[in-house]
């Protein structure tokens, strides 16, 4: 019965969203119709919530008459993973997508703000159609409520690798980001229909782009952290198509966050902002297509069904087709006021956009190139990390080189010499970092440049905070407390980028790995540490059994212990690795337990030393924090009516 209620409410939500779309789009000059569209948006969100709640209930109750539950759940699973199982599979995740889209539509409908009624009504309408598209796809191509006959006695269980708290939160965060980009898309389409994209429009756009970018940052960071500790390869980013699928929308969302500021403050580059909003949503859909269609070989495997891939491609074509056609027709007519000088806050933000957009384009080419070559009969190829490292790294490097100047320059016309003078200490610190790294690493130039850039971003961010503090009045603490939230948010995000850069460069350039074959009691020396395998024993978890190895780590006389596991889930023929991680200030010692060799008593142990790897995740958190603070600043500004 619950499944039928779920399917029925999803269908109802589809009907409501379609009505919301029609009334919203035709309600531009008709107050009652626009009001009805807004009310429909609210009700469609509530109805979609009921539908999603039904799906969660089915997973919690382990109702194996439902195909999605039978394929992805198991009665023995802990409750958290039963709930997470609702979105840990293709069908459920698409319902989540639709649900989030409906909720965002409702929020958009309730925040009319300073926008004109026609723009707002059309935005709500387009969002309704986006939700409807997602629901059509969900109901007709991946129905999570489909029944199974005969029903199995037991489900096949969620892939053990996915039974992890980080991965329970990863898909919802990523979807909040992906779907968050649908609202800027809706607003952009509304602005194009309207033929007007003014400062009020950009003001309405900003919170959505910020929220989407923040959720994407958190989602990608969490996914990367999960890959680091769960997959047992010692890596955190693999330039895998599935990772690129989320990285491209993130880059474009980052550009959009910045360009929307220019459009809001100065009214300029509105058409570029619109283009970015369309591309951001396009890339989010493309990401869904790449992940779901299986056209690209990925180290992350997902359900592969070509029919679904084609359907996503059709949705993508419709969204981009309408978006770009409208853009071509209307963008030239948009007013372009307020010019700016080559050295100014605006120009720096334009460079930011240029760099991020090109980076996204390069990642897109690298990700799709294998498809192109295959289609042209050139055989099967893969484009690996070397390509992305050699293209994306220099681009982002160049971007980071000019980044600290951005906040220092004033709007319209900036004074480059004065800014450079203030930033001189940061530049000196970066130079010192470069020289020290060069000497210590025996003249390896690339890591030296990378670390110097990280220090440059951090120090540059601090210099900016300092110059703003100096402008204040009173004592130091008072000055700090009086700094606008926007200064803190921007600085947190920029310094976070620097922290992430330090971690990424150090980890990539200076990581060490070693495989050892150890009997209990034997030791191996590794990066200044003596690692001893103490014993290997068996343990029982809630729904798995595990082989656990305990290690003793001696370093400069200090002794610590750590353990690594291999887990065997009865529902899965494959064991999973639970690595042991011993964090210290200079980095992580990371131990993965391999197989016991056939006919031997020794265990394969893989040791990794990942210097400064925690900075990667701290940096990502700082960037997300920057986004969140920025949202808070916008909310405060709105409340104070400024």
């Amino acid at each position: 019965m619950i499944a039928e209620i779920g399917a029925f409410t999803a269908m109802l939500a589809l009907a409501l969203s379609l009505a919301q779309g029609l009334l919203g789009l035709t309600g531009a000059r008709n107050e009652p119709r626009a009001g009805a569209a807004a009310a429909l948006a609210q009700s469609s969100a509530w109805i979609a919530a009921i539908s999603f709640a039904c799906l969660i209930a089915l997973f919690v109750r382990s109702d194996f008459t439902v195909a999605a539950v039978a394929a992805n759940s198991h009665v023995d699973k802990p409750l958290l993973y039963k709930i997470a199982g609702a979105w840990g599979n293709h069908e459920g995740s698409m319902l989540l997508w639709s649900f989030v889209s409906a909720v965002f539509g409702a929020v958009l409908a309730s925040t009319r703000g300073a926008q004109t009624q026609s723009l707002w009504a059309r935005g709500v309408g387009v969002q309704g159609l986006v939700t409807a598209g997602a629901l059509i796809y969900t109901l007709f191509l991946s129905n999570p409520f489909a029944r199974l006959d005969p029903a199995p006695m037991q489900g096949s269980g969620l892939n053990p690798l996915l039974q992890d708290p980080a991965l329970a939160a990863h898909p919802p965060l990523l979807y909040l980001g992906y779907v968050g980009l649908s609202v800027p898309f809706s607003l952009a389409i509304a602005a194009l229909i309207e033929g007007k994209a003014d400062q009020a429009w950009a003001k309405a756009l900003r919170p959505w782009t910020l929220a989407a970018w923040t959720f994407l940052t958190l989602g990608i960071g969490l996914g990367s952290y999960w890959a680091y500790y769960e997959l047992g390869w010692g890596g955190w980013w693999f330039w895998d198509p599935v990772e690129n699928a989320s990285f491209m929308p993130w880059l474009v969302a980052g550009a959009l966050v910045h360009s929307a500021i220019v459009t809001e403050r100065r009214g300029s580059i509105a058409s570029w902002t619109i283009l970015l909003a369309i591309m951001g949503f396009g890339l989010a859909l493309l990401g869904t297509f790449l992940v779901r269609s299986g056209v690209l070989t990925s180290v992350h495997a997902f359900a592969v069904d070509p029919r679904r891939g084609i359907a996503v491609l059709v949705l993508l074509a419709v969204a981009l087709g309408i978006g770009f056609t409208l853009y071509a027709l209307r963008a030239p007519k948009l007013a372009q006021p307020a010019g700016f000088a080559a050295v100014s806050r605006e120009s720096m933000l334009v460079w930011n956009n240029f760099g991020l957009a090109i980076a996204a384009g390069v990642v897109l080419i690298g990700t799709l190139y294998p498809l192109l070559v295959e289609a042209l009969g050139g055989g099967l190829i893969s484009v690996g990390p070397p390509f992305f490292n050699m293209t994306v790294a220099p681009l982002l490097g160049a971007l980071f080189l000019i980044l600290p100047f951005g906040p220092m320059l004033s709007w319209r016309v900036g004074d480059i010499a004065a800014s450079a003078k203030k930033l001189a200490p940061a530049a000196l610190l970066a130079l010192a970092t470069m020289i020290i790294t060069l000497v210590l690493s025996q003249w390896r130039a690339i890591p030296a440049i990378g670390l110097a850039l990280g220090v440059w971003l951090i120090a540059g961010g601090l210099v900016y905070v300092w110059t703003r503090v100096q402008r204040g009045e009173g004592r130091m603490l008072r000055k700090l407390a009086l700094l606008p939230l926007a200064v803190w948010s921007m600085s947190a995000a920029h310094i976070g980028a620097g922290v992430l850069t330090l971690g990424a460069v150090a980890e990539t350039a200076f990581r060490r790995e070693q495989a050892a074959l150890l009997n209990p009691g034997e030791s191996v020396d590794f990066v200044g540490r003596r690692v001893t395998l103490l014993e290997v024993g068996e343990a029982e978890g809630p729904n798995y059994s595990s082989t656990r190895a305990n290690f003793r780590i001696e370093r400069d006389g200090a002794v610590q212990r750590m353990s690594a596991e291999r887990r065997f889930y009865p529902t899965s023929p494959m064991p999973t690795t639970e690595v042991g991680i011993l964090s210290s200030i200079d980095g992580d010692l990371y131990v993965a337990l391999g197989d016991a060799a056939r006919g031997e008593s020794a265990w394969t142990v893989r040791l990794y030393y990942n210097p400064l790897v925690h900075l990667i995740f701290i940096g990502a958190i700082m960037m997300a924090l920057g986004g969140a603070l920025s949202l808070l600043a916008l909310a405060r500004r709105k409340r104070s009516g400024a």
Partner: protein
Amino acid sequence: MRRRDQRLIMIATAGAVLVAAMALTFWGLRDSVVYFVAPSELSERAQPGQRVRLGGLVVEGTLRRDADGAMRFAVTDGAVQVEVRYDGVLPDLFREGQGVVAEGSWQPGQAFEAERVLAKHDETYMPREVAEAIKQRGEWKGDTPQ
């Protein structure tokens, strides 16, 4: 500076960055693309030392460990078997009789030296490349196992 000059400078810089990015992309795609080969195509399609992805099924009963701790196993596409050596911990999903992709290079008279071995998160998954290779050999049994 006059406004027109400023605009010219910006456009010129943007153009230079764009050209550099395109050059890097082109160069990168030429140099760092890794071809996928099936075991039977290895010697004809890949130069010794060239980095390729070798895909196929792990032959049952061939997995063993060298004296130095490196793993050895044979990969087949139904026609030819290639010996692979990998100095590292095999992924969790690695199994005899199942699909695998080994990235690395070969030298005449030696085993294929893998730097990376990829198996998939999902145990029912067969790497697409392997499926293609086996289909080409006409040894495909049924559709993708789901």
